[in-house]
């Protein structure tokens, strides 16, 4: 199978879906001639023209809400929000409009829109360009939340997202863009709500998302040398969340560590642990979570490194469950 970067896998999914379906359009800041702030949309504007790949003014409320209105009226927009941190400018259009209008109208309309956005710290980009925040959106009824961690998943999940008749938010961790992996040339889909066991193991279940899957993999590699066998479950979508796969894994290992780059409180870590506890799974040790503390992401390298989850923090948490 050909190797492609995470970034290229997303580009390929966009291109193939635009060829397949003329109602798919792209809108966002600098998605056209600039090629996307992170170079994901590349030359799509040349291939499909500036009618279908639309550079917008810096008006997120207008083009995200506009995407929703267009989606309800026959288009299939893929809208780009440059950094998730900017969502606030358009929050009403996201969570009161795109997410709820179908329900409030008694199912009269649908919102086949994808809102792609970027997440993640480690770039010394400080408190307004480093957050993860997907849990905020998974919290609200009416939004599907997709969090890919590999190039293969990125392509398949994005194609599913574009073909899906609902409003999907699709989160791309900036550290994943250069990562390579095997990606088929032809279009394929990956269903929502199906977790992927990224590594099999017997002693501890680690649930991790996005870039944290890779940090967890490194931790698992190192711990394997110390005789600790780690299973890594990547939910791939948070809404819907594949509780069954997570529970099955924890039933096998009896130990659970949830790793998340998002803020620790009231987020995915708490939710995932609750799902397991609700199923009455017998645990050999209290569950642990590794996540970003309740601290705005600081600029200085020494401060940012202090708060972000990483391989070493994951290893420590895993070892604590093994005591």
């Amino acid at each position, binding site marked *: 199978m050909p190797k492609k970067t995470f970034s290229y896998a997303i580009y390929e999914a966009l291109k193939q879906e635009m060829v397949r379906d003329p109602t798919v359009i792209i809108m966002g800041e600098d998605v056209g001639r600039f090629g996307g702030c992170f170079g994901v949309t590349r030359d799509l504007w040349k291939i499909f023209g500036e009618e279908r790949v639309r*550079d917008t003014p810096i008006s997120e409320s207008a083009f995200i809400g506009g995407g929703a209105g267009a989606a309800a009226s026959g288009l299939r927009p893929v809208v780009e929000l440059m950094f998730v941190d900017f969502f606030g400018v358009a929050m009403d259009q996201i969570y009161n409009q795109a997410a709820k209008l179908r329900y409030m109208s008694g199912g009269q309309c649908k919102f086949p829109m994808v809102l792609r956005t970027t997440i993640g710290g480690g770039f010394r980009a400080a408190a307004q360009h480093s957050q993860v925040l997907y849990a905020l959106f998974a919290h609200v009824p009416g939004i599907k939340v997709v969090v890919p961690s590999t190039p293969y998943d990125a392509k398949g999940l994005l194609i599913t997202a574009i073909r899906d008749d609902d409003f999907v938010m699709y989160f791309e961790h900036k550290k994943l863009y250069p990562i390579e992996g095997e990606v088929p040339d032809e279009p394929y889909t990956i269903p929502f709500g199906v977790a992927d066991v990224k590594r099999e193991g017997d002693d501890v279940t680690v649930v991790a998302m996005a870039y944290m899957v890779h940090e967890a993999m490194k931790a698992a590699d190192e711990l394997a040398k110390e005789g600790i066998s780690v299973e890594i479950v990547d939910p791939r979508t948070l809404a819907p969340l594949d509780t069954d796969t997570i529970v099955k894994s924890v039933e096998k290992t009896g130990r659970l560590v949830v790793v998340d780059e998002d803020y620790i409180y009231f987020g995915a870590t708490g939710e995932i642990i609750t799902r397991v506890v609700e199923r009455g799974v017998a645990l050999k040790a209290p569950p642990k979570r590794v996540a970003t503390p309740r601290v705005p992401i600081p*600029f200085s390298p020494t401060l940012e490194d202090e708060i972000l989850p990483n391989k070493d923090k994951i290893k420590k948490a895993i070892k604590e469950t093994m005591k």
Partner: protein
Amino acid sequence: MTEVVVKEKKITPEEIPKEKLLWMYKTMLRIRRYEEKTAELFAAGELPGFIHLYIGEEAIAAGIMAALRPEDKITSTHRGHGHMIAKGGSMAKMMAENMGKVTGICKGKGGSMHIADFSIGELGANGIIGAGWPLGTGAALASKLLGLGYVVVCIAGDGAAEQGTFHEAVNLASIWKLPVVYFIEDNEYGMGMPSWPKPGDPRKSKNIKNLGDRGIAYGIPGVTIDGNDPIAVYEAVKAAVERARIEGIPSIIHALTCRQRGHFEGDPQLYRPKEDVEACKKRDPIPRFRKLLIEKGIATEEELKKIEEEVEKEVAEAIEFGRKSPFPDPKEAYTDIYASEPFPEV
């Protein structure tokens, strides 16, 4: 599209005190040299994160601050080094901040996109485009209700004027009669998106060129001026600030300038015609103002050279200060989150 109509300045250099003119020159130069060094340091890997340079736009910061009193306040942007320097902020503390050092003006927590110095009325750069318009409007409300007498100048880009926050803030200030000035720095680009069409690029982010005309929509004064002429900026801001301070009438000032460098350092500007960058460099405000000072006999070569030497020294010292300063202790990450610290859980 409408053609752009620039309001010609009425004031002549002779009507402005010499020391103010020299201050403007020095301020522009301080910004320029600071930023040239910043570009070098960034390329050498000494500055983490994102850096957006103000090179070519210095006449705006110098002209605005020349018209303000020390107690007046500004809001700034991601392209804010120039605003900070002109407002009277410490170059050394800003350099240390941008290096992520504990001696930085924000203790290393903010970095270039978030430099702020409330002690001098610099209410913060911002990573969110258009966030400063409402924040500055609120600062103006405080001035009015507490009787503090200061005026706020909200400075942000042409791109920021596309956000809903601009329209909401200006409308609010116009009905509440707040002492505020909305200053749009139009450098012809919002990242890779041109304000209006360029050779070979039909895109535009606004349907009118004269953003000063937006004043009509809110029933307040608005002008479009030459932002590469510090005297034109000074004149427009002086008039707007007086109206704001005395009568509580807000204004819009739209200043035309251009961005000599990429949107951020490292931006190859593939979306931008080469000749556009060249044309912009020709509009450089610093040699133009220097020439004026000499030709009008306002300053001698020797005087300007002395200023230039002082500036070199100050920038070198700022870098030295930043380099010598330590990084913050990692535990500092958990402070400054809440005013009522310590918060029971982080």
